[in-house]
């Protein structure tokens, strides 16, 4: 009898855990915080500061979602994930949203049971080498040993690139980004490859950052963006439009400093975004001042970019592809109306 009871209880527990993932939006609202999957420490994108608070471009997506949902950007809990663990963590419901410099590809979008909801950073894969090697181009890397992170698109792009150029190489594959950097720094490899933004971020961690150069070649397209579970459309909409609201705000000139004044703006686009006119929030099943809260507490896309990865940070990244569409970049918000 005891055994039967135990079996029944176990079966019931399994049944419950599957039933609980019906709608993430309701779940998140119920528990009162957003569980956000981030990296294990990539400066500028998701990195804990000295006080243990997570900051970065990817972190701002999660903070924005919390602001839109609860009116409080601090209602986020973070789960640091390695590249290898990230998709399983999202699939199994351990995190609500994965905002961890993850490349949007066809296979990931279709075969993993996940949906990419947008792009918060347009990136491309690059190579870093020691400057004393005298290498000027990635085409000269034949015979090199390359340090790379496991489970990334980087690993495949590298194989494609070397094969396409008829060059030989030896990969050394690590599980954690920190281990890759440590091994490269210890001289195990000639080359370190990852997304160009990642190279800029990890270079800060090296013993002598100035002794390394990033080669000019960008060998792939790496659109990085937040991911949610497939079929969870209401929740996907919330994350997607939080991202768009930040871009739209920059386009309309609304930022965290002037958002209160902007409430009295005559521009109907601004009025709709800030919830003075229309019922945008209701359509998303959010409070009507959702975008106001995002802008007030997290800032618009441009502010987030400048604060985390822009020219005045240690990463010194230019806007480039990530400028607004009207400035020649690719960041483009669908109309909020």
């Amino acid at each position, binding site marked *: 009898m005891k055994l039967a009871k135990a079996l029944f209880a176990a079966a019931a527990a399994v049944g419950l855990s599957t039933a609980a993932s019906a709608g993430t939006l309701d779940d998140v609202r119920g528990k009162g915080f957003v569980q956000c999957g981030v990296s294990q420490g990539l400066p500028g994108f998701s990195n804990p500061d000295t006080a243990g608070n997570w900051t970065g471009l990817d972190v701002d997506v999660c903070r924005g979602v919390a602001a839109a949902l609860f009116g409080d950007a601090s209602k986020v809990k973070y789960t640091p994930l390695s590249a290898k663990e990230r998709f399983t963590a999202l699939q199994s419901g351990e995190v609500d949203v994965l905002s961890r410099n993850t490349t949007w590809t066809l296979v990931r979008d279709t075969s*993993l049971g996940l949906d990419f909801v947008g792009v918060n950073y347009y990136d491309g894969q690059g190579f870093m080498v020691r400057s004393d090697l005298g290498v000027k181009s990635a085409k000269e890397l034949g015979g090199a040993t390359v340090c790379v992170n496991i489970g990334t698109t980087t690993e495949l792009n590298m194989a494609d690139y070397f094969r396409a150029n008829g060059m030989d190489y030896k990969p050394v594959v690590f599980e954690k980004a920190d281990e890759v950097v440590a091994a490269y720094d210890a001289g195990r490899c000639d080359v370190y490859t990852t997304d160009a933004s990642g190279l800029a971020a990890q270079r800060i961690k090296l013993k002598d950052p100035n002794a390394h150069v990033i080669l000019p070649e960008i060998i792939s397209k790496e659109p990085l963006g937040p991911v949610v579970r497939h079929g969870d459309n209401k929740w996907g909409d919330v994350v997607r439009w939080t991202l768009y609201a930040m871009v739209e705000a920059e386009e309309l000139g609304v930022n965290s400093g002037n958002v209160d004044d902007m409430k009295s703006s005559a521009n109907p686009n601004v009025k709709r975004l800030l919830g003075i006119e229309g019922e945008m929030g209701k359509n998303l099943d959010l409070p009507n001042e959702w975008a106001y809260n995002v802008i007030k507490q997290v800032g618009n896309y441009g502010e987030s970019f400048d604060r985390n990865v822009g020219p005045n940070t240690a990463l010194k990244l230019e806007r480039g592809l990530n400028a607004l569409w009207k400035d020649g970049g690719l960041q483009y918000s669908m109309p909020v109306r």
Partner: protein
Amino acid sequence: MAVQAQEGLAPAKPVFWNDPRFRALIYQVLVLGGVIAFGAYLVNNTIANMEARGISSGFGFLTKTAGFDIGQTLIEYNAESPYWRAMVVSIINTLMVSAFGILLATVLGFLLGVARLSHNWLISRLAAVYIEVVRNLPLLLQIFFWYFAVLRSVPGPRQSLNAWDAFFLNNRGLYMPRPLFESGFSLVVIGFLVAIVGSFVLARWAKKRQMTTGEQFPVFKATLGLVFGLPLLAFLVTGLPLSWEYAELKGFNFAGGMRIQPEFVAMLIALSMYTAAFIGEIVRAGILAVSHGQTEASYALGLRPGLTLRLVVIPQALRVIVPPLTSQYLNLTKNSSLGAAIAYPEIVLVFAGTVLMQTGQAVEIIGLTMAFYLTVSLLISLFMNWYNKKIALVER
């Protein structure tokens, strides 16, 4: 009289549910049914949920192109090979580090066990300190220690340590000349095989002769001569059909020759040193388990200390040593999965890592990986059980 009484009172056949044997059977069937039903429910639930979320499943991915490279490949492999080949490459890497690790750990462990029993105070203390330090530190920590110790203490490729322009040591690995076998070398291999078979025959013959006549034959020396002499003879007769390909610096790294990766070296050192500490204790326990009377009896029969150890003490000690030794071998094999932490391309890193990430089929891949470890562990157990049976006390 008593017999008659018993016949009269023949016990009534109990009702079947009161029959303890029947009830035991029913309970077992019920429990087994419950376990199978629970398992089936789990499998069914997993499949249903994966389908509902659009996660692909099945083993079809194994024949698709892998598209990534692996740092250490003992068989032909490149980015255009299918996933199953990547799995085989990583399995070979796991087996290689495990096999060398077991070999080294056994030798080192036996030395440690004997050293700890040494009458020399210094030797026995040193062995004790080694065992206590090494077996009380986490293995992962030791692996990191050896990896970065190995990496940081050797120079880069352009400042390689060089021995006779044939051996080069740098932080990309140890480079050695690669033997190139020319026609006629097969004769040397045949000579070697013949020598091995010959020495088995010789040993049997010598034992038989000793049984009948009591005369001894220097089997060990003869075997040594046979195993080295015959291939050497073939080698000389066929006119030295062997040349060497030397590694040389080309661009960034050395090309050609044979290379041992620093990851392999670090794994081998860490695994064998760690396991050797445990084996040392097992060996010490085994030797101490043989009562001292056996040694004294052996001396009384006039056997020299060396022969006493070989013929009296060790065969009896082995009976105590082998069962726990088996579990150490299993531990070492399973611990080789920690190689994933330092980029040693074994099955957890390559198959349950890269392949899992590229295909996203966690259930199948983790299942295959578990099946691999289970198979290897069972095979090792099987072999060690066979060996244990062979050396077990035969009662006559």
